[in-house]
């Protein structure tokens, strides 16, 4: 475990050199929030209206949190790196190291997104307050609960991206699979709470990764309760176990197919 902590710490320190890039990247995040602020303002003709239990303020806060989770993942670059490692044969440099490749990917990626997550979270709180003018009912417990849930959500998302990247063992380029996954997460998971969808598919969405990656943490921020917190955290732990197991199996089988020429 200590070696992974060391990798994590090294990546955190390394990412501090790119703080300016992160700050510039926030612009893209703020732009999306601004567009959705305008869109929801148009849809909620009266600010006191509620749609499926959500006021316009809840909706803006919901998107602010889900967009953090979607934006900080940096999945496109991360997935491309894994695909390139497999295709170019660079993965061989990691195979013979005294650590698990998946553990290495996970700890280095988490290290890379930590500073980004902190900066985005602080920005979301400030911008959300500017747009909405008030906070949802928050307590110290709800903030801590939301942050724990967000960290677990980032871990699950990272494991899913690793899984998609490792599909490169079987197909030439797994990046297009990532595009689909990220769009599914963006369109179905970040823009609307599950309650907005037709009742028929809400059950399916509550079993899907959306529940643990985007909906759960955002719901805790907007409408916290200990019962919801426990439900979401348990679901997230189960998802971490399953996705980690799947990555392990895929890697173990894939690495047997690996054929690298020269070096």
């Amino acid at each position: 475990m200590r070696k992974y902590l060391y990798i994590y710490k090294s990546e955190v320190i390394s990412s501090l050199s790119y703080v300016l890039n992160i700050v510039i990247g926030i612009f893209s995040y703020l732009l999306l929030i601004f567009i959705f602020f305008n869109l929801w303002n148009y849809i909620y003709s009266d600010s006191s209206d509620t749609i499926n239990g959500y006021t316009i303020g809840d909706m803006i806060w919901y998107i602010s949190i889900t967009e953090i989770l979607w934006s900080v993942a940096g999945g496109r670059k991360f997935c491309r790196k894994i695909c390139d490692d497999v295709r170019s044969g660079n993965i061989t440099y990691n195979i013979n190291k005294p650590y698990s490749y998946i553990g290495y990917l996970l700890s280095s990626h988490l290290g890379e997104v930590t500073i980004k997550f902190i900066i985005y979270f602080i920005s979301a709180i400030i911008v959300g307050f500017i747009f909405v003018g008030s906070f949802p009912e928050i307590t110290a417990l709800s903030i801590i609960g939301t942050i724990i849930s967000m960290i677990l959500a980032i871990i699950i998302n990272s494991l899913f991206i690793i899984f998609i990247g490792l599909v490169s063992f079987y197909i030439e380029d797994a990046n297009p699979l990532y595009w689909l996954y990220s769009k599914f997460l963006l369109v179905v998971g970040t823009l609307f709470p599950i309650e907005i969808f037709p009742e028929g598919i809400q059950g399916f969405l509550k079993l899907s990764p959306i529940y643990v990656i985007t909906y759960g943490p955002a719901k805790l921020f907007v409408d916290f309760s200990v019962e919801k917190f426990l439900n979401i955290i348990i679901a997230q732990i189960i998802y971490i176990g399953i996705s980690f197991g799947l990555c392990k199996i895929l890697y173990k089988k894939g690495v047997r197919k690996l054929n690298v020429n020269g070096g």
Partner: protein
Amino acid sequence: MLTAVKNQIKVALLSTKYGLMREMTNKVTFIMDVTFMILNNASFIIQWIILYSLKDDIGGYTFKQVLLLWGIAASTYGFAHFSFKKAFSISDTINNGKLDSYLVQPKNVLISCITSDIQVSAIGDILYGYIMLLIYGITIQNFILFSLLSISGGLIVVSIAVILGSLSFWIGKSDSIADTGNDLMVKFATYPDGIFKGITKILLFTLIPVGITTYMPVWIMTEFNITYMSIVLASSAFFIFTAFSIFNRGLKRYSSSNLMISKI
């Protein structure tokens, strides 16, 4: 003059053709890139189905008009990235001295540079645009208008990328400015203009000309208007002219350390 332009276009088309042939050597990856980009764009239809279940009109657009908006935005983006991929990384080309290999070619430096590579997935964007047109209602007139407006919009998008990327001649690394500008164009282009008000709306028709690349084309397709059409075409010519002027002015300041690269 006319022969030179004709030759330049011929070289640009040949460059695109060979780029496409190169990318098609791996057919599975090629088909996957195109297909998945279509599916990637199509996923946003879910977003609009949900939004229209909450309200009948959004920003003054019907559901079909939003599909058309997406179609124009996708094909504009697709045309720009398929034919002029390198325009979106011109800042990197300037900063790393990669312009050297284009300077020695007996053709226009800017055109040679920005047409030297293609983006395969952009074919998916172009196809998606025409699929949306098909759903909206295709006629010969619509088809011609759609193609013309996608090309003119695409040329504006490319010109803006060149203008922002060319800032690297003066301020060093301008890639984040260019990326942010390009990002602004893409994000605003897929939402109806009616949801924006005041200063934002003014910006969308001036500094961030999404209004000219996407909104006006939708208005023209919905109800043909010669004034809007003239604005779109004149703006396209204006942005192209500005892009060439800024790039050529910047090129006079260009220096490098004689970078050796192979161009295959």
